[in-house]
């Protein structure tokens, strides 16, 4: 055995002994002990739990591995908690730019090496930032894991932060912001975020602003890495046909070295302070057409109203489709939905309308049915009549089934599964909590659904943005949208 092998064997032994020593420590991202004990588990939950392996690296980074043999793709995600909550208006976007710069070069891998490997393996490496967290991920075919993991890890622990890489990333980020101005629908979202978030921490948008990015320098990215890239912000989620023990050793010897800089983690984001108003955004290119979106505060995934609201808004969406599109032909695509953030919000959307002046009347007609406790008919003998309505309680089993199927649909790729696990941790602190969603849906009652929609949407405070050519938006009557 040569010296190199001896050292490697010793390292392996130390790592193994360390793991044995830590075996009894509770896993920090599995908080809800009662709900996941034997008697409280459904067959679905039990089956899923078997596919998980969890452990904590020596620097405190929790790792969750979900073994999935269903596809030949793996995904490996380093997650940094904080997102917009750790940013300010001045530093919005810095984290995303720094992470993207890290993806362009490291001590061992030059930019050319990285591009060449990614191209040859048809893989992707990159960063994504949201209001609550950022990820640095690699996704590719299983057969390339041993090639891609060292690359991913070296970018994380030995980033080169070259000036030319930073300049390119910053330019890309600025152009990405510009691209949102080029489409009336993305422009609507930009205006809505500005108006709805206001001084809320989510207003420090993860992609940054023109002002914040214009002021950013390479040293800011380096400083961010030096101060903010800390093991106490990090956890790792991997999904695929990976060997947990092998991955554990690989992670321990790489990102297990990331130091704990004890970055203070933010408290839960405050709720939104919405106001009822209509914002008109002129978009001259959209001649003869308008886009409408209304945002409102909504329950977070940890709130008991969350599932009720999700199912209720499916019913509302069908009512909107039935009335606004089917009856009046007044829009191309109507919808109502909520998101899944700890400080949550929902949207009511009319994507493309040439009658923005009349559309609120049609929306109200649809919402009125729901407020009376009715939704569109689902039974074969009544549904042929477009005006037929049935009580929410009668339709509820159908909508529950629909929602459960949607749940499955969002679990089809390993990357989707990883995102669900990450969201579960961010929202509840427990990687397993999403497994309880099925039971929560099954247990919903009609009164809970009606009450939630009434509270957050029908009685809620909605900020509206209408975007379009001047002739379109000028004619939109404010009184239809604003509650005085």
């Amino acid at each position, binding site marked *: 055995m040569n010296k190199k092998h001896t050292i490697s064997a010793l390292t392996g032994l130390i790592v193994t002994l360390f793991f044995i020593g830590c075996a009894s420590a509770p896993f920090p991202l599995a908080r809800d002990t009662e709900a996941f004990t034997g008697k409280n588990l459904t067959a679905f939950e039990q089956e899923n739990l078997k596919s998980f392996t969890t452990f904590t690296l020596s620097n405190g980074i929790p790792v969750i591995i979900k073994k999935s043999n269903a596809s030949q793709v793996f995904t490996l995600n380093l997650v940094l908690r904080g997102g917009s909550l750790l940013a300010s208006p001045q530093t919005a976007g810095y984290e995303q730019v720094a992470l993207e710069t890290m993806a362009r070069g490291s001590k061992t891998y030059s930019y050319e090496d990285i591009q060449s490997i990614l191209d040859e393996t048809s893989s992707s490496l990159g960063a994504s930032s949201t209001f609550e967290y950022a990820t640095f*991920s690699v996704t590719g075919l299983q057969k390339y894991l041993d090639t891609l993991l060292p690359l991913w890890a070296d970018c994380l622990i030995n980033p080169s932060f070259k000036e030319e890489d930073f300049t390119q990333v910053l330019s890309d980020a600025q152009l990405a912001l510009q691209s949102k101005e080029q489409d009336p629908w993305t422009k609507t979202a930009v205006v809505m975020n500005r108006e709805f978030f206001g001084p809320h921490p989510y207003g420090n948008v993860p992609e940054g602003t023109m002002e914040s990015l214009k002021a950013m320098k390479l040293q800011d990215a380096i400083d961010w890495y030096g101060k903010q890239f800390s093991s106490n912000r990090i956890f790792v989620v991997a999904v695929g046909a990976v060997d947990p023990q092998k991955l554990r050793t690989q992670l321990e010897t790489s990102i297990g070295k990331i130091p704990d800089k004890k970055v203070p983690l933010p408290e839960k984001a405050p709720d939104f302070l919405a106001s009822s108003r209509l914002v008109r955004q002129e978009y001259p290119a959209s001649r003869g057409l308008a886009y409408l979106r209304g945002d409102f505060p909504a329950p977070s995934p940890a709130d008991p109203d969350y599932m009720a609201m999700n199912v209720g808004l499916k019913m509302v969406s069908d009512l909107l489709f039935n009335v606004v599109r089917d009856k009046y032909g007044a829009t191309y695509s109507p919808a109502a939905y909520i998101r899944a953030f700890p400080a949550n919000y929902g949207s009511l959307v009319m994507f493309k309308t040439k009658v923005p002046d009349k559309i609120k009347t049609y929306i109200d007609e649809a919402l009125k049915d729901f407020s009376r406790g009715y939704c569109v008919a689902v039974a074969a003998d009544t549904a042929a009549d477009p005006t037929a309505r049935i009580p929410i309680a009668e339709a509820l089993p159908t909508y529950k089934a629909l929602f459960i199927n949607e749940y499955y649909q969002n679990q089809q790729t390993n990357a989707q599964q990883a995102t669900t696990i990450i969201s579960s941790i961010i929202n509840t602190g427990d990687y397993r909590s999403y497994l309880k969603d099925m039971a929560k849906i099954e247990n919903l009652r009609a009164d809970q659904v009606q009450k939630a929609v009434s509270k957050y949407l029908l009685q809620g405070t909605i900020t509206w943005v209408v975007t379009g050519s001047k002739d379109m938006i000028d004619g939109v009557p404010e009184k239809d949208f604003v509650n005085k």
Partner: protein
Amino acid sequence: MTIQKRSLLCLCIGLASLLFVTPGFSEPYASNPVSHRVLSNGLEVFVTENHTVPLATVCVVFRGGASAQNPENAGIFHLYEHMLFAGNEKYPTQAAFTAALNRMGVPNWNGATGSQYINYYITVPSNRLAEGIEFWSWAVKKPVFNEEKLEKEKEVVINEIRGYHTDPDHIFQNALQSRVFYQFPWRKNIDGPEENVQKATAADLQQMREAYYIPKNTALMIAGDVRPEEAFKLAEQWFGDWQGGAAPIIAEPPQGPFPHNVKLAYADDTFYQGVSMVQFFWRGPDVLRQTKDTYTSDVLLFLLSSPVGRFKTALMEKGPGLYDERYIDFSYPTSRDGGTYGFTTYLRMGISGAPSIISRTETLRQLVLEEFASIAKDPEAYFGKEELEKAKTKLIDQNLLSMEVASSFVTGTLTFWWSVATTDYFFSYEKNCKAVSFQDIQDLIQRYITGVDERSRPAVATAVRFSTADGWKEAGLQKDITNFGYQNVSPETAFWWQQQR
């Protein structure tokens, strides 16, 4: 954002390619679990197993869409797509149709009209597969075109297409396509003029149904948590009695060669400041007419794809202010008619003392042609044998990746290949790509891009897009537009029907 996906500027590239082919580029995977049968009425049935989640997708695909249009019915395939959801003999109204979807627990349903196909799909819980297949059988075999509903749906469609007609990306691409495919421009635009939609009647839709919505022009694709034998049995049960005439002839006669000297400049208020987009297009092979060339083209794409490969590196070094190697894109969306090679990149604006964007575009086109000429001179020396094998491996890996989600595999990849090409083409694709040689690549480039000499050089179309704020600051731009023979693009003259009025 990921490095490989190039999502930053992909909006423009993405929308550009949308007009050529809706689902984007990907190919079948030879060892995938796709089973295939043809029913006695000519309906082709494909079944793909993937047991990741307890869901099954049922997709019906018809050959047609823009490529089958004429000036009078342009846009009506799209209207028909909407009306298929509006009612049939079993589910007489859109409300009944939607309610049936809800009763089945359908989390995902939609339809799409592309330049070469129309497809409709639903995803059902796998234990309701039989209902899902029956559901589509009614929609396909027994649609009802209610006059009152048709008038309402026209308004919905106009809401939709008015968005396209005012979208600068759409305007730019239509301006180009209506000029390079000047003989049959309506075969490249899905949405058509608003007037065509306004004047459409139920009789027009019925006529379209009889010609295109028939078993010999249709594929039924079933994917997900399904068993092939059961799926084939259900297909026979619900579609076996469906009758119709002979498969329609689509896209004949073929689009001709590009005219020489198509050069367009689009000063756009909404475009990025700091960069301009430059595109070159050549008439490429059509899949049923120059079949072998399409395999060679796909291998060539993968040879050129690396951001740090020789092709892109050379252009970055020699090119007049290219933005970034990741935004150099060479594309070939396989097409039944009007196959096109596209080169897209971005040039930096505001470079002190630099020639105008038009002048730099002229220089860049020459450089691109020279680089292709270098490849054609000796492809093996240019790339090396190892790169050819790597390109073929990448192609197969892309196929593996496309298989991850059963629903998107059938609604995207399989829909695309079946409608654009043929079943045989799909199943033999990988084998034929593996057989591509450097000699094939040399021949291809000489025939379609460089010519063997200056006199035989095929026409190349050029399109430049820049922000109004950036562009007019450049000294001499307007003069260069005139001197180099560029035509200004405007929303009033971009679409084929505007030019014919």
